[in-house]
Structures are given as structure tokens and as C-alpha cells.
């Protein structure tokens, strides 16, 4: 299981990467993509949408499953990975790079404190 040290992780299996200026990039973890299997459809919000932490912001569908995505932080969507519309398999192939989903400008940066580091996240998924 690939879990980059520099990222933060949510209980809902998203990764969060701090990019400065209160902006964070968000995607799903390697563990999540592997559990889901072949991803064939990703539904994301639009630039300008407001997200609330712990609320659904989109969904990801594999051949057999539909799973909701939960926002790890509150804020405004400032970028959306539009390549995933035609290439949802990027989430399987490179969950931490080409498979990124959105960039959010946080309204409450203290949301980050609730997230886990790599070792704690690993502990959580190993306990499942």
C-alpha cells in the first residue's frame, strides 16, 4: 500500500496535500482505489462550489460499486480534474498524481488538524 508521508489522510479514505495559501489538493488513497477495483466513472463538483467538511461532494463508481466522496475540509472548489471525465482509470493507475480530484481553498484551515498522518491512516486500514 502506497502512502506518501507528505500527505494527510481522512477516515473516508481521501488524501489531502497542502499547496500553500490555504489551498489543498484532494484525491482518494491507493487503498481506496484498490478496494473499489476498476473505476469507470467519477462525478465531481464544479469550480466555485462550496464544500462542507464531512459532507458528500461527489462519487466514484467502479464496474460494480457506487461510493460517495466526503469532503475532508470545508471551502471553495477552485480546480477540478476534468481529465477524469474521459480517463477515470487514472484514479486506479496513479491515485496521488494524475488521479487527483479537486483543489479546495479552505475556509477553516483548522480542519486539517482532524486528519491523520500516513502511519495513523495505515493503522486504521490495517485494523479493518
Amino acid at each position, binding site marked *: 500500500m502506497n502512502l506518501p508521508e507528505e500527505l494527510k489522510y481522512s477516515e473516508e*479514505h481521501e488524501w489531502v496535500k497542502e499547496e500553500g495559501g490555504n489551498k489543498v489538493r484532494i484525491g482518494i488513497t491507493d487503498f*481506496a482505489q484498490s478496494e473499489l477495483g476498476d473505476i469507470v*466513472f467519477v462525478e465531481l463538483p464544479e469550480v466555485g462550489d462550496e464544500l462542507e467538511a464531512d459532507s458528500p461532494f461527489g462519487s466514484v463508481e467502479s*464496474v*460494480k460499486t*457506487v*461510493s460517495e466522496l466526503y469532503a475532508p475540509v470545508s471551502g471553495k472548489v477552485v480546480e477540478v480534474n476534468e481529465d477524469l471525465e474521459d480517463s477515470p482509470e487514472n484514479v486506479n493507475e496513479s491515485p496521488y498524481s494524475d488521479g487527483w480530484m479537486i483543489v479546495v481553498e479552505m475556509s477553516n484551515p483548522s480542519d486539517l488538524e482532524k486528519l491523520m498522518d500516513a502511519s495513523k491512516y495505515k493503522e486504521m*486500514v490495517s485494523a479493518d
Partner: protein
Amino acid sequence: MAAWLKPCPLWQTEWEIMEVEIVAELKQTPLYPVYKDEAKLVPFAGWEMPVQFSGIKVEHEAVRTRAGLFDVSHMGEAEITGPDALALIQKLTTNDASKLEVGQAQYTLMCYPDGGTVDDLLVYKKAEDVYLLVLNAANIDKDVEWIEKHAAGEVTVRNVSDETAQLALQGPLAEQVLQRLTETDLSAIKPFRFLQDVDLDGVRGMVSRTGYTGEDGFEIYLPAEQAADLWKKILAAGKEEGVIPCGLGARDTLRFEARLALYGNELSASVTPLEAGLGFAVKPEKGEFIGRDVLARQKEEGAPRKLVGLEMIGRGIPRSRYPVFAGEEEIGEVTSGTQSPTLKKNVGLALVKREFSEIGTQVEVGIRGKRVAAQVVKTPFYKRSKK
């Protein structure tokens, strides 16, 4: 599995049941020890079954282009024997079992008096007065009870599910691969025919040219204790051709593309075989059987609902139980849907009011609260080219 991973629509019923009974003991097939470390396992109809080995898309493609091996030992088998066996089967099923020769199999359904479906099944005629019924795993107890309740005269009903394993080798190379294990000429087994007591490299089983994938292939019934041996032999025999083990995930996408009904999705106690487009297996002219009045009428006048294919026009994937609309009217619901691995299109099967069933009809699918445009298209989504 992580709590975050929501129950997937196609297994929804099973997951819902599981959540209620939480750790109700899951059954395992005799092959469980062979693949438990290499497959992703899920609860299905009370069984702990492999949903995938290498990946649903890869397995799907293997079956469409080469061959794949499935463990379907969870399926049920009931043996009906005795001078009144045929009469019992004729009373219970919609197709005409009197047409069967020894060595022939038939797709058929059992219905309630109102025409709703008890189960869909295969009937094998093994000898005069000896039949084998192959039942859906989730329905075994219900079916056997239903069969026993209607048994009359000199007939014995025996549930042989636990002692019987079933492997399915499916795909264009199935015959070539299986032929390596036997002296018996498999090309002589025509579709919906079978041979008993075939020697497959020392394992004896019943080899049937049937399947649930839309491809050529075989279903092999054998004693449970020999299943692991045959599984390994078939995979070894097909190694060069790229035969791989396949799970229930690919089995479902394969049968879906070929428009083969799945009980619990396309069929249920509230859906008749005619609504599900299975009129070819309903023969009112054979004489009395349970459900005949309703089914004969539907065959004559048309059923009020019809199973149609849907292709999405807007972005989204239709999934089981999503509502279907025409204008403001809810006209039915999706029974199965996914992104077709062969066509790479988002398609579904839906049971809709008959007046909306014409090809080209514009409809909308309710996808998690949003209405997304779709249209009625021809099925099956996939049909193999004949040799």
C-alpha cells in the same frame, strides 16, 4: 472492507441481509481454500464468494476473447426421480419438459399462481424419470420447499446442493482447453446438451454445453470433494491460452451484456417471465401448470411492463433500482446496469410500462436525485458472432 465502501447495487440485497444478520455464518464452496488468498471475497446469497481475482474488466475480456474459469458451486441442485417426476416438473415449470431427450437441458422458470417468478432454472434430463434441477443459490431452500409442497405420486425430491460442485469454463477457447483433459469428443456436445460421467483427467463429472456469459462454454457438475483437483487441472491446461480464474463480478457483467436474467434483479416474485422477456420459455400450450392463466393471457395480450435496454445520453451510470421517468411520470426502474466492459457504454436493463418500451423512446434515469437523459435501445448489448 472499509465502512466507507458503500454496498454496491448489484450485491445490495445480500449486503442488506448481511447487515441485519451481521455475522450469520457464511458458507464456503469446496474451492474456498484454493483461492481464498488470491481473490477478493464478498458475501453473496449467504456464501463467501470471490467477486474478482485479477480485476473485473480483465476477467470479462478474458471470457470474451479466450476463456475464464468460474466457481459456481454455490448454485443449488435438486434431483427429481420416479415415475411421476416429469408430471411434477411439468406442473411446476413454464417450459415444456416433455420435449427433453435424455442428455438434453432446458431453461425454464417456476412461477406462483399470479405469474410472479419463484426462480429461473435449468432442467437436465439424466435418464427416463431422472431429472436434475439447477437453482439459484439464494433460492435453494425456498425452491426445494416449493417443489416438495407440490410433489405427488411416485416421486422423490432430493436436495443434492451440498455434495455437488459446479465449475463453469466459458469463452471461445473453452472447448479447446477442456478437450486436453479428456478423450471424450467435446465437439459432439451441442448447446443445451450434456454428457454424464465424463473422465476429465481422472475426475468424473457431468459436462454440459451451457453457461451464463453469452459465450460458448461448459458447466461441469462434479462431486464436491473433487472440485479443487479439477479447478487446478483446467487452469493448468489453459495456461498457455491465458485462461484465468474469474469471479462473480465478471460473471455479472458478462450475463448482463448478454441480457441473461438475474433473479433478484430482472426476476422476482412480482415480475413474470413475460415481463422479463422470457416468453420463449413459457409454453401455455403444453397443458396445466402453476401460473398458466396469467402467463397465457400475458403472452396473448402483452404484459403490462416490459424489460428494455437503456443507454445513457447524459453523464451517469444506471444502477439497479434507480427510477426511470418519462416527463413527470415514473414509468419503471432499472434492474441492472453498469458500464459495459465490451461496449464501454453506460447501459442498463429496466422494467418499464409497455407504452414506453419502443426503441428510441427518450426517458430519464433518476441518479441519486438527479434526472439524467437516456434512451431505449436494443438488447442484448452483446451477441457473440456464430462460428
